[in-house]
């Protein structure tokens, strides 16, 4: 009985701690969200939460960002980057994990050594190279760097997963006359679904939110992705009269990913964890 009482009290303490932590974590976001729902000219203290519900600030942010255009740019570049990352990464990991040779081992370290090197570092030579090779500046140019920078993590993860797919099933398929391409695409790849989910979630969140490469490679406004479109609000940060619109644009920018998270919450959680635990 006494023990039960202690468990009850410790449960309550744990809950209080967790609730306080959540409030502390979410307070900035909640305050900003409440102000984003005000009219542009409402400059009451931002701590008076949810005093007004208006979409005026959202409408202003929507127009200033050219939301449909930048959303489309973001969707297209993130989507096509992810397809190519999954394709290149899984294909490269197939020989690396299946063939036990010095070259295979070398390739593995060749790729994973990139895990520690910051992406910003290579930007000077890469920017030089892109202008030297006359690669045009389009909304697709940053994709080159998204794919490149994803290779270390993607090959690292896929190599780990392919190793756990038994070789015996491939041997059986070989005897039945299945070629390499068919074995990979129809037998091995479908078994790598957890790895693919993890790659899509982790790399997808990063690419969707990245403003660095688009900022360096894109100059035309109609080619901006969502986070780059946010950069034009940089001056409003210190101008309280523009804050309601700025806050609305923050939530417009985050909205697509928040919706995705609401739908695929389980995949997000397992995908983020799988990437680290498998290593």
């Amino acid at each position, binding site marked *: 009985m006494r023990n039960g009482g202690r468990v009850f009290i410790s449960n309550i303490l744990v809950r209080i701690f967790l609730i306080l932590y959540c409030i502390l974590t979410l307070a900035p976001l909640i305050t900003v969200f409440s102000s984003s729902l005000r009219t542009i000219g409402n400059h009451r203290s931002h701590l008076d939460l949810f005093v007004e519900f208006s979409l005026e600030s959202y409408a202003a942010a929507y127009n200033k960002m050219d939301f449909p255009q930048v959303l489309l740019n973001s969707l297209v570049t993130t989507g096509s980057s992810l397809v190519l990352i999954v394709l290149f990464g899984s294909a490269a990991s197939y020989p690396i994990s299946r063939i036990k040779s010095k070259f295979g081992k070398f390739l593995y370290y060749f790729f994973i050594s990139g895990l520690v090197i910051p992406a910003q570092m290579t930007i000077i030579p890469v920017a030089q190279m892109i202008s030297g090779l006359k690669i045009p500046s389009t909304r697709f140019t940053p994709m080159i760097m998204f794919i490149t920078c994803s290779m270390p993590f993607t090959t690292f993860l896929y190599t780990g997963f392919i190793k756990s797919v038994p070789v015996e099933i491939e041997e059986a398929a070989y005897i039945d006359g299945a070629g390499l391409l068919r074995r990979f695409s129809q037998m091995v790849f479908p078994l790598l679904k957890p790895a693919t989910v993890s790659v899509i979630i982790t790399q997808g969140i990063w690419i969707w939110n990245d403003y660095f490469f688009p900022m360096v490679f894109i100059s035309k406004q109609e080619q901006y992705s969502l*986070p780059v479109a*946010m950069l034009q609000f940089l001056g409003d940060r210190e101008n309280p009269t523009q804050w309601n619109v700025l806050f609305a644009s923050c939530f417009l920018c985050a909205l697509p990913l928040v919706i995705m998270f609401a739908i695929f919450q389980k995949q997000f959680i397992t995908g983020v964890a799988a990437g680290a635990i498998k290593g």
Partner: protein
Amino acid sequence: MKTGNGNAGLVMPKKMFLFAIPAISIYFTFWVFPIFQLFHYSFTNFNGVNRNYRFIGLRNYIILMKEGTLTSVISNTMIYAAVLVIMSNIIALVLAALLNTNIRERAIYRTAAYFPTLFSAIVIGFVWSYVYMPGEGMIANLMNIMGLDGSGFNVLASFKYALYAIINVDIWKHIGTTMIIYLAGLQTIDSNLLEAAVIDGCTGWQMFRFIKLPLISATITINVILTVINGLKAYDYVFIMTNGGPGKSTNTLMYTVYKLAFTEQLMGKSAALSIVAFILIVAVTITMLIYMNKVEL
């Protein structure tokens, strides 16, 4: 049944390596090759436009050292990484341990803690610029409400605290990811083991310290290494919130690399700093990996 070597060669022929060609070519062209070029640039006075640059030996490195840029930038970056690693891992581990009990509404807490990681760094930078803003900002306002004088609050302009204010934002954003990884690690522990410990009279703290913690040591290593790398790469919030200021107090390695290259057009100098960053990051990561594998919890 044992598969002979010749047999394996038939099932897994060398031509499989063709599969790796797309990945190798893009990775070599835009990652490996640029790093070699970076070495090359670091010994020149290249400014990004004029192709007739000269070889100037170690001068870029010497200037970086003489100006004091190197020391201040490296010490800022090391403080950043150290505080980030310690704080985010401790908080995330405590959260994960608490969430790993059978609280019914734990999915709600988990979602709340993970939520900030969904936002782009640029949005987070704006939100926290508001939080830290003097006068009308969230903290200044809260101080006023609580009867403290919030009018003097301006943390981003403080030489002493601006760096920590920025690290705080990074901790806030990354706890979610770290916590999810710890939670997954804790969930791989065999429940039979824990039941046996309860029968043997293990208290909650003993269980955590002597059973769970050693069993998730691999997870701890991964999380620590990941946060160290993140800390050493720190760039976003300096760029969005302080531009390295006040003075040079929040200049980090990666932000300075960017600023030297794109604002000051000193590509050679920026390349030299990149090389220093490269060596530092590799050295710290390898040292940490060796150390973490030796420590017994």
